[in-house]
Each structure stands twice: as C-alpha cells, then as structure tokens.
C-alpha cells in the first residue's frame, strides 16, 4: 500500500478525519443510534445555514459580534499597551501591580457581567465593557514583558545616536518588543471574542450568542447546531487571521 494512503499529509489526514466523523455522525443519527431530536444528522444541519442567512439575519448577527469584539479588543489594546508601558516605565508600580494583573488575568472575569448589567443596562455597552475587561490583562502583561526584555544594548545604541526619548520608544523599544506585544493582542482578541459571545448568550442580547440562545429556546435544534458551527468557524478564522498577521508583521519588521 502506498505511503500517502497509510500516512497522508497531516492537512489531508485532518480533512479525512473530519469527513469520517461526519459520515459516522450521519449514519449513527439516521440509524437511530442517537436521537435525531437531540443530535440531528449533518444532512439536516448544513442546509439550515442558508435558512439562518435568510430568516435569522446571520450576517447581521455576525457583524454585530464582530464589531463588539473588535471594539472591546481595540479598547483593551489601547488601555493594555498604555498600562503595560506604565508598569514598565515605573518600576515600583511594576513591582506592585504586575502580580495583581496576573491574578486578574486568571480570575473568572466574565462572571462580573451582572455588575456591568446594572451599571450600563442590557445593551452593547455591557458586552463591550465585558470584552474590554477580559482583553486588558493579557495585553498589559505581555506589553510589560516585551518592553522589559528589550536588550539593553539596543537602547544604549539609541542613546549613543542621540535619539530623544520618544524616538527611542518609536524606533527601538516598540519594534523590539512587537512579537511579545502581538502575542498579548492576539490573546486579548481571543478573550474578547469568548467573553462577547458568552455575555451575548447569557443576557440574550447582541449577535451570535443571542442567535444560539434564541434557536435553543425555540428548540430549533438543527439551526442551533448550524449557528454553533458558524461560531466555531468564526473563531477559527479569527485565530488563523491573527496568526497570519503576526507572521506578516514579524517578517515586515
């Protein structure tokens, strides 16, 4: 038997696995091994995606979630980079608050949403605020880490050339710490997406999260599975695009 058949390339093997999984799912559901009401076959799920676009404004829901996530991640990035810079610049503040920031990053921040709900009300501000709160700590920590680890010799070279403080920041500190800062931004974006969809689902407001909650409440199970698949695809796209952007930025540096 040829090697490509026994051990195909990983990417083909991945698609092969997914294909086999879908086939097993289809036959198990059709043969009655799994209840079709609980786990509908893929042949029922995938056609409902077009229904979601036509009847449930899937595009609008996606754009709303996308917008909220980017607004939250953008605010998180702005605050996080400034915060990280301050913790790097002020050594005592860095020593005092970095551990706190790490503890906040590990805390279940999404559970604070009832507090934001009573402050901002049931609207997009609550969702964006929750996303921002979640995306801020990784950006702060990674920015500080990146700036702390800039090689001293690079800064010394800048000083020798008589660069001003702002020029040092612009031409040496930030380019040198860009890979670490970008890891923080990527983590911040993923955290923002997770929290945005989570809060949308919990408070029943917004885009994709609301759509899933809505379809689940109406017992439109095939549609609900289709919406979940769409959310998974969206996060895969986010992850993939930021990965590619990181590679591109690093090569263009």
């Amino acid at each position: 038997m040829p090697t490509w058949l026994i051990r195909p390339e990983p990417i083909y093997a991945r698609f092969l696995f997914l294909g086999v999984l879908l086939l097993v799912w289809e036959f198990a559901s059709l043969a009655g091994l799994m209840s079709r009401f609980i786990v509908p076959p893929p042949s029922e799920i995938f056609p409902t995606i077009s229904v979601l676009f036509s009847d449930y404004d899937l595009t609008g829901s996606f754009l709303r979630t996308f917008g909220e996530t980017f607004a939250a991640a953008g605010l998180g990035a702005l605050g996080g980079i400034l915060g990280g810079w301050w913790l790097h610049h002020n050594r005592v503040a860095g020593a005092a608050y970095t551990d706190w920031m790490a503890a906040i990053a590990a805390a279940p921040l999404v559970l604070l949403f009832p507090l934001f709900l009573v402050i901002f009300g049931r609207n997009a501000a609550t969702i964006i605020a929750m996303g921002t709160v979640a995306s801020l700590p990784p950006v702060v920590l990674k920015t500080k880490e990146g700036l702390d680890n800039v090689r001293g010799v690079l800064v010394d070279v800048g000083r020798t050339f008589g660069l001003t403080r702002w020029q040092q920041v612009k031409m040496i500190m930030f380019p040198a710490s860009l890979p670490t800062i970008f890891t923080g931004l990527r983590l911040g974006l993923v955290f923002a997406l997770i929290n945005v969809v989570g809060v949308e689902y919990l408070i029943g407001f917004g885009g994709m999260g609301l759509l899933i909650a809505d379809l689940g409440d109406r017992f439109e199970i095939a549609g609900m599975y289709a919406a979940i698949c769409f959310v998974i695809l969206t996060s895969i796209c986010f992850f993939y695009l930021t990965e590619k952007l990181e590679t591109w930025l690093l090569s263009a540096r």
Partner: protein
Amino acid sequence: MVAVGQMNDAPRRRRLRISNSVTTYRVVALVLLFALWEIAGASGLFFRGVIPSTVLIAQAFVRLFGDPAFYTHFGITLFEIVVGFVIGSSLGVVVGLALGINRYTGEVFEPMLNYLASTPKVVFLPILLILFGIGVGSKISLGAISCFFPMALSVAAGVRTINPMFLRVGQSLNLSFGHRIRNIYIPALLPPIATGLRLGFGIATVGCLMSEIKLSNHGLGYAAMQAYNRFDIPTMLALLLIIFTLAGLGNYLIGRFVRLPGPTNRRTTVLPPR
C-alpha cells in the same frame, strides 16, 4: 571597615526602600478603589442601589454566612467544579500524551485542538442542556470541556520538551509503555501539568458558573442571578466576591499542592545562580 559595611548595606537598604514603596503603592490603590466605589455610589450618577456602600456588602456577607441555603449552593457549585475539573483535566492529560508522544498524531490533531480552544465554550451549553438536563450534569460537562483544552495543549507541548536522553534510556532498559508513562513522562510533565491544572481550574469555574447563571435551580451562579433579579445588589456582589475568592483559593492551592521539581528531566535547562 565602616565604608565596606555601608557599601554592603546599600543594596539592602535600596531593596527595603523599594519594598516599602511597593507596599505604599498597593495600599494607595486599595484606598483609592474603596474611595472611588463609595464616591460613585453616593454621587447619584448611577441608579440608586446599583453601587451599594461597602457596609451594605459586608452586611450581605454576614447574612449569607448565617443562611443554611448558602452552604447548599456553595457545596453544589464546589462539587460541579471539582468533578468537571477532574474529568476534563484527566482526559486532557491522556489526549495531550497521545498527541505529544506520536508526532504524526500531534501534527494532525493539535491544530484542531488549538482552534477549538479559542472557541467560546458556552456555545456548547444548549447541546449539553439537551443531553444532560438542567441538573449538575450539564454544569459538570461544560466545566470538563472548558478545562480539557488548556490541559491537553499544555501536556502535548510539554511532551516535546522532554529530554530525549531519558526516552532513549527507557528504550535501552526495555521499559514497557506503562512504565515509560509512569517513570519518565509523568515526572517530566509535572510543570506543564501544573500549568494546565491552574489554567484549567479557572476556566472550569467559569464554565460551571456560566451554566448555573444561564439555566439552573441551584449553585452560587443561580443564587447570584436570583439576587440580581430581586435587585439585591449587595448580596449579588457578596456572592460574586465569594466566587472570585473560591477561584483564587483553588488556583493558590493547586500551585501549593503541585510542587514543581527542577527542570532536570527536560530539554531546556536553567543555570543555577552564581
């Protein structure tokens, strides 16, 4: 002699001064936070009762600790988190080992795990509610799914950093697969397992609490939502603080419990301080 003594004292005094400044910064931050909270609550900028005084929150704590129902909710939440965490992290270790030991399996499946890890797990809750109902089953399963991914990815990455010499020694000694897992892989993987456990515990807590908040009739998340629906904000905040303390305490205990051995059996080595 005096001059030498003063020179030796200088770094110690500098460290002491920085340490004092750090304490001052922390105390100032806490006082500022407290003052801002009280000012915001009394300012009239928010609806009445939205930002309650810290005295009211303290009273809510006292009321909660005197209420037997609180302990029932607390016990159920703790049970869900612990069971979900144990199931998810155990599966994570097994899958992580499988992906890490066999390079080809890792190349095929690890990107899929990476992609799924960045997906909001709460989207699976409607399926879990249909499968397990609104009881503890759906909460435990979401907790398990949530903590599975960081553990599996952490272990898979950890396997690849094991010093190959140890694996070759295992082969030379003709160790069985079970022996190799027990005597080489697991001891070498304690640091990534500890990282996975600490990450996983927080995420399992979020998973369980989110499902309690969405649809439940027991647990701390349910109690917090009941307080929110009654507009009893002090009790809601007291419950949220208890949840945060529980998550922090769990993380701290895991950190203390999993004593990390030195990196002697790993590929990366750390030089001792001179």
